[in-house]
């Protein structure tokens, strides 16, 4: 089984993101800080087999989000996401 075959997409972290954000996030639109590509979160590349969750841009494959949960806390690194646009709830 290769890393490429283990890739999921943003749909797979819809539940995790709803633990953190109030809104449904898979149709939120993120802008990649590296290449400027705009994609709904559902289209992003997701890897969940690391200790945390790693999310990459489908256009340039740079890391746009890192999410680690443990010991009752979350650590979020969204430095690869320039903007997130989401529906008002």
């Amino acid at each position, binding site marked *: *089984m*290769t890393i*490429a*075959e*283990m*890739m*999921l*997409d*943003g*749909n*797979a972290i*819809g*539940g995790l993101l*709803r*633990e953190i954000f*109030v*809104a*449904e*996030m*898979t*149709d939120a639109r993120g802008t990649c800080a590296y290449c400027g590509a705009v994609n*709904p*979160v*559902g*289209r992003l590349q997701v890897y*969940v087999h690391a200790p945390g969750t790693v999310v990459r841009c489908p256009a340039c494959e740079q890391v746009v989000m890192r999410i680690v949960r443990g010991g009752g806390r979350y650590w979020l690194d969204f430095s690869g996401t320039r903007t997130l646009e989401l*529906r008002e*709830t």
Partner: protein
Amino acid sequence: MGVISPAPLRWQQAELVELMRETPRVSTLSFNVMNWPGHLAGQHVDVRLTAEDGYEAERSYSIASPPEQRSVALTIERLDDGEVSPYLVGELKIGDKIELRGPIGGYFVWRAGDDRPLLLVAGGSGVVPLMAMLRHRATVSHKSPARLLLSSRTFDDIIYREELDRLVAANDGLSVFSTLTREKPSGWKGYTRRIDAEMVRDVAWPKAQTPAVFVCGPTPFVESAANLLVGFGYDPLWVKTERFGATGTPGG
């Protein structure tokens, strides 16, 4: 019904009320969930199992039932080396309870009011969220035309085979194209190979019709189907994908 709820997502108890075998490896489990807010076709739930020692395993499963149905049906493939699916498919009995949360998802969803021709492409149990869409479509009077391309290993592995035949027989604009990748039964009229460019040319709506497209299945299948559809001329943004990973469902 059918709203994307802004309420906090909470784990809740779900009671198994119906169990139906679909194929030798796949069963549909219907749950009663108190205060279920309703869902959209294409959404999923997270299921959490907790062992006696506190060890937790979480998996995502697509909802198979349409928004019009009260209970939450999950069609689950049993993966022999999985942590969760062998318990759900094989050990869980009517009246047993599990924890789930949902509905989840706002990207990979389809509403019957969408007038665009619908193209659904599934590998194996990737057909589950697409079946919710077809069941949803079957309940409305004004239907957009729809095509499903379903890739299965063998004839016996075709999930929802008889129900799909009935939906097609209703003659309401749905066509189903089936391919088998590991078997060529005698008398079989469908394809017998992996999805390829020629199959996509046969099945896909012309790009001028700007179809709504949903592709779901194991990651290698989704990658290959999505690339073929873009190669056929579709805008990548039309092609909504949901990947299950290397096996049937993430981690089993």
